[in-house]
């Protein structure tokens, strides 16, 4: 393995594993993440999916993937991955399947499945040291059902079930569950956060993970124009802003040891990121909510103050 395989954008692999024509929203951040992620993974993949936006990419009789795909149910994609991985292993071991038929098993779910209904199955799979990948495309809500709050929705965001009202001026009052830390607490071989805006960082992380056997877990910020209330053309720009404001740290953890792979030298104010999304519009209109914006900024500042340079 060599993580210096990816140095510049010219090193982005040219082969496409996803074919256009999906019914996903124009500008879908999750689709961009999957497309780029797949390039670093290569071809022999079976995607194991739990209910979410991405489920709709393959609806009978169409699939955009040249690789295999298995839609499971909402709570148990990691358990589905367990069955596939174990079956491949035992069949190969017993000589019933040629080793060339082996596949990488990759769970892909949204944040709803990852941090809520599927958390139990995920913890079980990681605990059992399952040799699999998990790509969580995090658009910070239950997107497919109309953008209701999930435990990944950030404090201060408006969703269909956390609408800002005079009683709840912040919109969502609960904090964003720290899925990176939950995964990391199991001490799996590899956990990383990625962003579709920082492509080389993403590709390097995938490449690095390939050298590990066991759970390889990725949390990808996935801008959602439909749910976040932004222009479809801004998806990559928003991802970049999330990183540059420090809201979305780019980091990895190898057997629990954390390293930040990118540290913004001078963080942009969180306001720059919040004000261009309608899900945060209530923090600016009709009156600017200084205290909530300040609270968000404070949490970001506190996080980075603990990060050693």
């Amino acid at each position: 393995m060599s993580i210096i395989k990816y140095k510049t954008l010219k090193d982005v692999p040219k082969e496409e594993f996803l074919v256009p024509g999906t019914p996903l929203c124009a500008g879908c951040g999750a689709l961009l993440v999957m497309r780029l992620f797949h390039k670093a993974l290569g071809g022999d993949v079976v995607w194991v999916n739990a209910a979410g936006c991405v489920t709709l990419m393959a609806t009978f009789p169409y699939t955009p993937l040249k690789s295999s795909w298995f839609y499971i149910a909402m709570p148990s994609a990691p358990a589905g991955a367990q069955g596939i991985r174990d079956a491949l292993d035992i069949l190969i071991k017993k000589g019933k399947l040629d080793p060339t038929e082996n596949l990488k098993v990759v769970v892909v779910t949204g944040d709803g499945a990852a941090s809520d209904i599927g958390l139990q199955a995920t913890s079980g799979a990681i605990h059992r040291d399952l040799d699999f990948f998990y790509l969580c495309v995090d658009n910070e809500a239950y997107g497919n059902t109309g953008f209701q709050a999930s435990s990944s929705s950030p404090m201060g965001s408006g969703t269909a079930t956390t609408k800002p009202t005079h009683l709840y001026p912040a919109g969502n009052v609960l904090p964003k569950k720290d899925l990176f830390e939950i995964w990391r607490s199991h001490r799996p071989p590899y956990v990383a956060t990625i962003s579709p805006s920082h492509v080389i960082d993403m590709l390097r992380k995938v490449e690095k993970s390939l050298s590990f056997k066991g759970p390889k877990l990725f949390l990808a910020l996935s801008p959602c124009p439909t749910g976040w209330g932004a222009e479809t053309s801004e998806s990559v720009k928003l991802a970049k802003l999330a990183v540059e404001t420090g809201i979305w740290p780019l980091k990895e953890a190898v057997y629990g040891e954390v390293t930040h792979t990118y540290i913004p030298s001078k963080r942009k104010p969180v306001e720059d990121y919040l004000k261009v999304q309608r899900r945060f519009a209530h923090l600016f209109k009709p009156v600017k909510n200084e205290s909530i914006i300040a609270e968000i900024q404070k949490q970001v500042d506190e996080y980075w103050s603990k990060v050693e340079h």
Partner: protein
Amino acid sequence: MERGHIFNPSYVLVTTPSLLFDMTVKPLEGMAEDSVLFVNSPREVSIEQLKKIRVIYGDLTGLALKYVGKDILSAAMGAVACKLSGLISLQSTLGAVEEELAELGLETDIIEKNVQLAKECYLSTESVGLRGLNHKPLHKVVEVRYLGEKGIPDLLSVGNTALRKTGSWRVFKPIVDKNLCTACSICYIYCPEACISLDERGYPVINYDHCKGCLVCTTECPRNAIRVERETAWS
């Protein structure tokens, strides 16, 4: 009183002309010769079955962009639907638009723009009265055959979404200016749909059959080498 699938519609309204060609949608099914099809399009669309049906065209997308600044069509389509039968007044129509949009929590000026849009669409659409009520399509009941292994919902034709021309979603079309482009490949990298490929010299080629017109490429191009035009092929 109808429920679910409407077997013999009096009116069919289609927002995206490319749906007329979609195999699974089949919007024209069950239409009688005197029923009415409304298509959101600035120009006539040529399709064999349309020849027998009364078709009305209207550039609702153009009007929406003019009044509201976005291609959001609900108020426009609602107004057209209300006018076609002649049963719903302008006042009721505009009142409905205002009430619906207020419930969504939109700002007053946005609501007002939508009301104006609805008004223009209502006034510029003709009323054709109740149509196609006597048409009874013939359906035959058949026995389902057991297909064994072939009747399992496994999808073997991988990578076949290419058959769905999502380019028809496009309202705006990105066009690369080869004179300004430096073949940096950033647009290729950031296209969520894999709709940009690179030619032998590394210059981007956009797949217009599938490009949804999200315009991420336009935003990310460091040279502003991609310009945007209103899509004319379908809308």
